[in-house]
């Protein structure tokens, strides 16, 4: 006899399995067309602008103010504990390079560019524009997905570098102006204790985040059903899933990178 709870769990499990299978097939198709076809240069550049360049302002503001508040809080805590702000430059740089730079940038990009990608592809799906691509001799994976994957994989790491720099700059501004730390001391704290490996730790993670955001956004868009309401639902689901997965993946990749000494 069927029980509503076990039936619900079973149904969810089947849905999840089907979604993972469909996403795997989509990835196979992305790799196939990436290696087998000529790159859609115009579309790729357009997506780099939409996903990367258009996210610069929000990324810059987010990281700059995050760096500022990081410096302010750690500076004040340090003052309370040690009567002076110690190693603020080191603290801000470590945190921005290893965690906040890549994670915050990924969340900003998932919320802004990921939503755009899902809504755009989703609208095309419900208005038969994806079918139209097939009838006009183009595979949608080649024309729509490959350029977006490339744009995410190229632009997210670049945005992260910008976020790292601006976060540290924001931290330095508060450290020097508000906490009274000499610029040379702040910079010396960074140069002495921060290594290239710390930067690489955060930088390498962004490739995994970019790949995941591209996969979730494109998958949700391609599988949108149900008109305008369906587009809204798919977009929300894509953004929520991407943001949660950034956090989950972040822990596991960090654990691996720490284990291998990066």
């Amino acid at each position, binding site marked *: 006899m069927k029980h509503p709870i076990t039936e619900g769990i079973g149904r969810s499990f089947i849905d999840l399995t089907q979604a993972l299978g469909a996403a795997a097939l989509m990835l196979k198709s992305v790799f196939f067309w990436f290696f087998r076809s000529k790159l859609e240069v115009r579309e790729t550049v357009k997506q780099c602008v939409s996903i990367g360049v258009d996210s610069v302002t929000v990324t810059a503001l987010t990281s700059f103010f995050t760096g500022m508040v990081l410096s302010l809080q750690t500076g004040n805590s340090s003052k309370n504990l040690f009567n002076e702000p110690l190693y603020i430059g080191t603290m801000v740089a470590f945190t921005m390079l290893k965690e906040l730079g890549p994670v915050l940038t990924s969340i900003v990009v998932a919320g802004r560019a990921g939503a755009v990608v899902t809504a755009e592809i989703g609208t095309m799906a419900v208005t038969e524009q994806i*079918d*139209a691509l097939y*009838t*006009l*001799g183009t595979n949608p994976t080649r024309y729509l997905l490959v350029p977006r994957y490339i744009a995410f994989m190229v632009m997210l790491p670049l945005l992260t570098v910008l976020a790292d720099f601006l976060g540290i700059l924001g931290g330095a501004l508060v450290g020097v102006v508000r906490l009274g730390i000499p610029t040379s001391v702040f910079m010396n704290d960074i140069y002495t204790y921060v290594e290239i490996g710390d930067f690489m730790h955060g930088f390498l993670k962004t490739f995994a985040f970019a790949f995941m955001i591209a996969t979730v956004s494109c998958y949700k868009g391609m599988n949108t059903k149900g008109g305008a309401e369906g587009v809204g639902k798919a977009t929300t689901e894509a953004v929520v899933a991407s943001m949660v997965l950034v956090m989950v993946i972040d822990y596991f990749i960090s654990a691996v990178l720490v284990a291998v000494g990066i």
Partner: protein
Amino acid sequence: MIEIKGLNKAFGEKRILKDISVTIKEGELFSVIGPSGIGKSTFIKCLIRLLRPDSGQIIVDGQDIASTRSEFTLAKVRRSFGYLFQEGALFDSLTVLENVAFGLKYLTDIPKSDFPKIVKAKLALVGLKDVEHLKPSELSVGMKKRVSLARSIAAEPKYILYDEPTTGLDPVTTGMVKDLITDMRAKLGITSVVVTHDMKLALDISSRVAMLSKGEFVEVSEPDKFRLSANAEVREFMRISHLSRVKQNQND
């Protein structure tokens, strides 16, 4: 020639197409009629493998596309087709020029420099001019449909599939689209498949009409014979279509 043998398609438990077999001959204008939601669009989408049939064969010029898994085989066969979508399916982010030239870029080896000239000619064929630089959002429903038709004939396909070509159009534009469909066949010799719930359109333009009901073709015949069909479902659909047309005329 398109040969359809034992075509079946279901969505979950619901069987939409049941063992359909029909041959669409070269140069023919074959219409499929039936009420909305009966599976006409499913049928036409199976013909070009936008939907994968559950079983059966769809042989286009000797090549069975129903079961093939090769993207390249499908792409090759789809090159012979033009497709007019119900809502036009124009690409929102592209201009009219880019929309109509889209197929030229991917389906032909025509140099890019010739695109504007060809696009202008195709737009003129569907009664449009000076709209090349407009975006789809700036066009009326009728204009969108005509641009979509220009896009589907731009690469000069051997077959055109029309999905509800007159739905949502005013009587004048409906007449224009009707003339365009017959012109495409007369001037370019294109084999056409039209799916529509517009009985009058089907009977006026087709060389053969098929009635789809409960997943099966209950009648396939020439328009003159179709009008005299003894099939109860055909007669009922014709009666309702006639009443609806009379009512529409009274309202107009």
